């Protein structure tokens, strides 16, 4: 518990944590509500969505879908950056050396980092939900729609959001440990999340096996889970796999990324 408390204290007071969370909230608000609202009120509908689709996307009862749809790509990228920075920066600052000589076993120290990141990610998803719900209620009130709060189904969407966020967190932690620094970890992570998987999807339209592979890659699995719980109309959201299959792949990635990062952290010399 001491390790989690220590990591939480330093991540909570780290400006980067709140800058990244703030950027994500502005993005989800802008792309999920502001642009849709403007499109609904006389703007050009560039996504070829009907008025009914726009209204549905902004309804408070659909806020769960609004939360999950942003996470497979852009939200995931931000979470990955946060995790990679949180772990990778410790090598440059020399804080891993301080942490690993403080007392707890290396596994406990690593669990502390993972636990604190998990809490931060839960806060991020919860804040996304609250901000999206606030925006949805505001839009619905301004437009005079009949609206209702989300039903129990929202928990499925939020659960999926947390699993997707956990996968990107694990990916960022893994990259931070492997590269032993923040810059390369962030660069590689962003490259993968935003560029590589999309390029592979492009190739996949020409080669069947590559297309099948892209569906189960980290971003693909996240996109499929988001699609399975109602997220749609956002980059990275897919509808190729069932929710269960994609959730299993994501859980597998979490185990592999976190497990590999922990084994490396425990066994590797800190020089």
């Amino acid at each position, binding site marked *: 518990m001491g390790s989690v408390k*220590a990591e939480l204290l*330093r991540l909570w007071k780290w400006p980067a944590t709140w800058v990244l969370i703030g950027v994500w909230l502005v993005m989800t608000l802008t792309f999920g509500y502001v642009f849709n609202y403007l499109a609904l009120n006389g703007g050009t509908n560039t996504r070829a969505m009907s008025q009914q689709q726009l209204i549905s996307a902004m309804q408070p009862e659909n806020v769960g879908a609004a939360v999950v749809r942003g996470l497979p790509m852009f939200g995931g990228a931000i979470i990955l950056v946060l995790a990679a920075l949180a772990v990778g920066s410790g090598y440059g600052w*020399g804080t891993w050396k301080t*942490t690993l000589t*403080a007392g707890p*076993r290396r596994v406990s120290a690593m669990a502390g980092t993972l636990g604190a990141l998990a809490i931060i990610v839960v806060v991020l998803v919860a804040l996304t939900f609250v901000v999206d719900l606030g925006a949805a209620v505001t839009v619905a009130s301004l437009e005079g729609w009949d609206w209702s709060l989300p039903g129990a189904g929202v928990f499925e969407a939020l659960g999926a959001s947390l699993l997707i966020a956990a996968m990107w967190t694990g990916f960022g932690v893994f990259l931070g440990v492997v590269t032993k620094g923040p810059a390369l970890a962030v660069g590689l992570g962003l490259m993968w999340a935003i560029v590589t998987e999309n390029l592979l999807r492009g190739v996949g339209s020409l080669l069947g096996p590559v297309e099948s592979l892209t569906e189960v890659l980290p971003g693909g699995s996240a996109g499929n889970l988001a699609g399975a719980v109602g997220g749609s109309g956002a980059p990275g959201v897919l509808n190729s796999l069932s929710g269960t299959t994609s959730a299993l792949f994501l859980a597998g990635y979490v185990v592999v990324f976190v497990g590999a990062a922990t084994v490396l952290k425990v066994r590797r*010399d*800190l020089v």
Partner: protein
Amino acid sequence: MIVTTEKLTKRYGDRAVVDEVSLSVRRGEVYGFLGPNGAGKTTTIRMLLGLVQPTSGTATVLGEAPGTPGALLKVGSLIEGPGFYPYLSGRDNLRVHAARRGAGRTEVEAALEQVDLVAAAGEKFRRYSLGMKQRLGVAAALLGQPELLILDEPTNGLDPAGMADMRDLVRALAAQGQTVLLSSHLLGEVEEICDRVGVISRGRLVAESTVEQLRGDSVLLVRADPIEKAHVLIEGSSLHGDVLHVRETDAGALVRTLVHADVDVQEVRPLRRTLEEVFFEMTGAA
């Protein structure tokens, strides 16, 4: 013994960075770990803290294997400069460290007071001077009331005043009975502070004893005329150019002997090798 190592070795490929080092640190002493840059001091210390796994050999720290919670919780360390979060204040950095060591706020404040950082405790770590950063590192090492302090080059990069402050701090800790393993390449620092020293060169421990023993017995330097006659008169003396070195502590008797034999005595003074001379001799550094 607080620390013992037996043939502790670390190899990277074919190169032995630390080569069969066997040393021991006793309770209550300030042990100077001396060696030129790159001699293997920091790697040895990292092995004692479990940061680096030895290729072969064994080590025990306070009776425990290095790197285990049982050992680490009783050891405070500052390795190659302090590692803290630049965006946190000095106090918050200590609180983070205290949480990991199971120490409370009272201990954080006591440690800040001990290193004279209370006034600057609220400032961000990145704004600290090098001396303040080092002192915060020592404060972190003091958290949890460790039985052993391991300080690796604590005066590195400090100005003369900062170095003096750090020496005073280590002296004060030693006076309180704190066991300290102090690694340094600054000989004056070690000579002033340490009870015993281990000298490491090219990965091998070439000597381990008290500073006094390392410097050897003192000799008398005698300048006299004629020097050859004095050399014959004084048994066991050795001629070094135009002076004699005599393993004799009774200078009065020696002078009387020479004067009675009609030898002019021009200078008699004790001569003792400095730790620096011993160090250069042992390590081949110059």
